[in-house]
């Protein structure tokens, strides 16, 4: 048992330390593919770059289930390099100037840099337009980056014991959970599609095409969710360490009540801690699955996470383990959405 868990944490560390902003998922995709090879019946990459692994074949009484965890992360894209080598940028996904300041970035081509800021007026709130990336270049000519180059935040994985911190827990922790579930689950009569989706942070785009291609009967996103357990934080029931969160709604979709019930029943059956999630802002791949083709019952298994979209996103070790157990239990039995 201990060996398996070590492997989960090792995989998680590898995933969160690999850069892969939306549209530049080729490196993270190959790492995941190498790790799951041999555990699936079929692995392929679709037109947009979603990595799709099938395990099991549909049999009478089973269901075709799509699990989607996105492998892209927020990042920055260069829009201009000036004569002195300073690079201006635009956000890829939801980026706050406040979490950029003093940050270090790693470009897909290996170049590193730090984020600096123009002088602000007193009480001025920094905007992204006032920030720039300094790669140490002394001129435009010796800059290793140009317009269109992409970087993610660079920050090492931090093990705080019960709590784990990294730059892209959103959504690499879910990818690690899905990978672990893929390895462990016995699909029985179900046909399982594990989708490691792209471009979620810029509008759930990968899941739209993956869902159309897979054409599932049930859809389950795995993603992080906010918590309400920090000092003077948002009012929200979800807290770190209280178990996997079962999504009821977010601003992108309302989870199918039958899927919610299916998840709750499984958590109860396994005597796993769980919490109900009502998220006021944010969206997940569940929205894309729900509205593909003629419609699909869809839900989302959420991992509680503090400081989302900052370089230091925090999750709870037990929540991660329990999420694997819940997912394996859901996928390995006949599904009844009565």
């Amino acid at each position, binding site marked *: 048992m201990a060996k398996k868990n070590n492997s989960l944490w090792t995989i998680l560390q590898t995933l969160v330390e690999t850069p892969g902003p939306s549209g530049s998922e080729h490196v993270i*995709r190959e790492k995941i593919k190498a790790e799951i090879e041999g555990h699936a019946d079929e692995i392929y990459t679709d037109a*947009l770059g979603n990595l799709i692994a099938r395990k099991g074949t549909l049999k009478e009484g089973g269901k075709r289930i799509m699990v989607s965890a996105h492998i892209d992360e927020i990042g920055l894209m260069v829009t201009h390099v000036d004569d002195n080598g300073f690079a201006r940028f635009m956000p890829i996904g939801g980026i706050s100037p406040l979490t950029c300041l003093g940050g270090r970035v790693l470009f897909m081509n290996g170049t590193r840099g730090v984020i600096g800021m123009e002088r602000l007026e007193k009480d001025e709130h920094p905007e992204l337009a006032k920030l720039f990336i300094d790669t140490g270049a002394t001129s435009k000519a010796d800059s290793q980056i140009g317009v269109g180059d992409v970087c993610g935040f660079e920050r090492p994985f931090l093990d705080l014991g019960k709590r784990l911190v990294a730059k892209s827990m959103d959504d690499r922790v879910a990818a690690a959970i899905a990978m672990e579930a893929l390895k462990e689950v016995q699909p029985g009569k179900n046909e399982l599609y594990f989708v490691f989706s792209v471009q979620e942070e810029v509008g759930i785009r990968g899941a739209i095409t993956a869902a159309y*291609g897979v054409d599932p009967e049930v859809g389950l996103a795995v993603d992080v969710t906010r918590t309400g357990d920090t000092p003077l934080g948002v009012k929200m029931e979800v807290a770190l360490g209280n178990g996997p969160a079962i999504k009821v709604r977010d601003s992108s979709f309302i989870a199918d009540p039958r899927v919610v019930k299916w998840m709750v029943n499984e958590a109860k059956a396994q005597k796993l801690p769980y919490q109900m999630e009502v998220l006021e802002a944010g969206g997940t791949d569940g929205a894309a699955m729900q509205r593909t083709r003629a419609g699909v019952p869809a839900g989302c298994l959420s991992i509680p996470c503090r400081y989302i979209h900052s370089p230091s996103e925090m999750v709870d070790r037990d929540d991660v383990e329990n999420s694997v157990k819940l997912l394996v239990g859901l996928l390995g039995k006949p599904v009844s959405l009565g």
Partner: protein
Amino acid sequence: MAKSDVSTKFNPRLGKKELDLLTKLCNAVSVSGDEQEVRAIVLEELRDFADFTTVDAMGNVLVRREGTGANRVRVMIAAHMDEVGFMIIKDEGDGVYEFKVIGGVDPRQLAGKPVTIGRDHIPGVIGAKAIHLTTPEERKQVLKVDQLRIDIGPGGDSKVKIGDRGTFATKLAVLGPSIRSKALDDRLGVFNLIQLVKHTPENVDLLAAFTVQEELGLRGAKIAAFAFDPEIGIAMDSTPANDLPHYDGLANTSHNTKLGDGPAIYIMDRGTIGDQRLIKWLVESAEAEKIPWQFRQPGLGGTDAGEIHKTRAGVPSVSVSVPQRYLHSAAGLIRVDDELNTLKLIHTALKRLDRSILNRQEKK
């Protein structure tokens, strides 16, 4: 069929025949939702060149032109037929009408502009109080659309109805190396797509989508892409060039594109992250043929590619635009060289296109 010569000999130019067509396209009134004038021109131009033509449920013109080679790649190219403009919403008598804008029009661009209304091209003007009667305070305010009226004068009212659309009345003009028009966005794309249907390279099946309602949210492209189910998607559009020197002498870090620097290849906009394999293909094609090109600065805005790439199980897509100053105003300005180089780039790239560019060459 009077199909044209093998495409390899195609050398884009803007002679009298081409300029006449572009002029006709640009001067047409074709506001989102009522694109019939441009649609009629497209259908007429391509009657003898298409292998298949249909007008779909929303009004997109879908044209298929098949190459003659083996292993042809099914490429969808979209250019939108609609333009931004106005819609008449209320008749106030005496030839005075209340209106709304259709698509992204800056209200500061409206007052005092001559306009053309409806299918009969009724001339009018967007009126505002004369400077003689305004106070200094009033002159600091931007006039809102609901404070403005379109005035066609009494007597013409019977020809203008609620729901009619209109545009700025500007006629196309050639200004030396430049062209000025109200609707270069996206009649240049329509013009270029017509040329590509007439000169389709033999290695592709060209799926030409002349789309509707792009300015309202890429609506026509969505269903056109579903119908065509292509292997590759390209949007041909026009994008702002904000390349004038800054009044304060500071470096311009957000020009978007520059006039004269060639076709603008998109990396990312609000709706699409361009497929990296297709971006590489376009850049290599331009370099090989020594066609000038530029990256459009990653930013906001969007093209039909935003819907095409999300169609069905996904379509690798990219956008290329002709840089244009003063987009969505009464008079945009482009360089003829940029326009011809854009057409040349797409045609060259298509000629070089092989399905193998879609292979993912990734390291473990």
